[in-house]
């Protein structure tokens, strides 16, 4: 079962509809217990960082998210759900989850902001979830971007006047700046990759449990 992180402001409907289309069961998680018990977590965030973090803390879901990700629960962060993985956002000075080191900064570009529309993802690092993403156009809508301290987590970049990080991947954690649930068949492809990856990870974890002495 995939848990969708609900902190009260994000619109989960479109991600849930996309998972329904892929015939994957999902549950809206509003408590730390629901996150702790999830096979996989999708965090589709919209809006500003500070109110989202306040809402997560209010529901005690911040700690549960950190624990689940550290335990290796397959995780997909979308847009703000990617940005909140970092330490701090310049958008409103919010302290974020700090699972990845680095900050969230306003995109320094001569092009128009917000960056709204379809743009391609390049320099894609190999990962089961990002398979087939290279060169694909995905739908973006944002003005802030992540700046990871450790460049090895970067799994994709996009150019809007200047290059910025549009995907990260570390082990079972993946985050994307674009909206796969709004990116047509390419987006559904990435969500399908994530679902298959989550299933494989669960099978592997089950096998590891059985092989214990």
């Amino acid at each position: 079962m995939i848990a969708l992180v609900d902190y009260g402001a994000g619109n989960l409907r479109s991600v849930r509809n996309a998972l329904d289309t892929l015939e994957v069961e999902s549950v809206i998680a509003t408590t730390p217990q629901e996150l702790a018990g999830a096979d996989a977590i999708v965090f589709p965030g919209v809006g500003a960082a500070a109110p989202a973090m306040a809402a997560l803390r209010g529901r005690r879901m911040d700690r549960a998210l950190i624990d689940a990700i550290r335990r290796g629960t397959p995780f997909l962060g979308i847009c703000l759900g990617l940005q909140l993985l970092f330490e701090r956002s310049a958008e409103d000075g919010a302290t974020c989850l700090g699972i990845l080191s680095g900050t969230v900064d306003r995109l320094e570009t001569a092009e128009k902001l917000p960056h709204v529309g379809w743009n391609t993802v390049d320099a894609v690092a190999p990962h089961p979830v990002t398979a087939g993403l290279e060169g694909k156009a995905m739908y973006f809508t944002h003005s802030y971007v992540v700046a990871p301290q450790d460049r090895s987590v970067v799994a994709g970049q996009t150019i809007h006047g200047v290059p910025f990080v549009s995907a990260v991947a570390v082990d079972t954690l993946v985050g994307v700046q674009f909206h796969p649930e709004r990116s047509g068949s390419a987006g559904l492809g990435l969500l399908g990759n994530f679902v298959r990856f989550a299933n494989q990870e669960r099978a592997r974890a089950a096998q590891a449990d059985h092989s214990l002495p």
Partner: protein
Amino acid sequence: MLLKRIIPCLDVAGGRVVKGIHFRQLRDQGDPVVMARAYSDQGADELVFLDIEAAPQQRATLVDLVERTARSVFIPFTVGGGIRDVDEIRTLLRAGADKVSIQTAAVQRPAFITEAARVYGSQCIVVAIDAKRETDAGWRVYTHGGRQVTDLDAIGWAKDAERRGAGEILLTSIDADGTQNGYDLPLTRAVANAIQIPVIASGGAGHPKDLAAVLTEGRADAALAASIFHEGAFPIADTKRYLREHGVPVR
């Protein structure tokens, strides 16, 4: 590179897609959800639904349409037409719309833009501007589906809307709308040059060359059209091929 967006517009009334000329003479065009899915499959980058009746008693029909569309369409879509308060915005976004377009209510009470953007984020607040050329220089803003003149200058109002938190401007030329003689390039360029947020050009598309012109000379970020897609003269795929061949970056 950020690609130029091609956006079919579905004018809806009584749960059906209709099309008029100069906001009048409505003709039935089909079922909104069926058409939305077909456009998405053909490569549309985004969709706009405009409730042209905007009658409060019809809202349930519109919300139902949004819910059904969201279940089977996985590209962004905007809903507009008579939206007057943040509660209506909440209802439409919860039903699955990605953005809402506000127009008359924003002109009557500009603080509405700020309130909406503060609650839901600028990314989902599109301010629609209907503009008509004045006999002297400049363009005047109209409301109520082009029937009511205001004292606002289109460029000044676009800048004000941006400052108040609009995420995009949907700019319709009343002069060009329904003529199929091309977009109003001077209007579009003037507005696009005056603001930082994206401009969606609307009104007057009759041929893919019109879209090419407004996305290059007109400096628009996206081109919205209805009849050329609905009537099958230029399917989305052919239109995009034409644009690609003429150097306009599209998906």
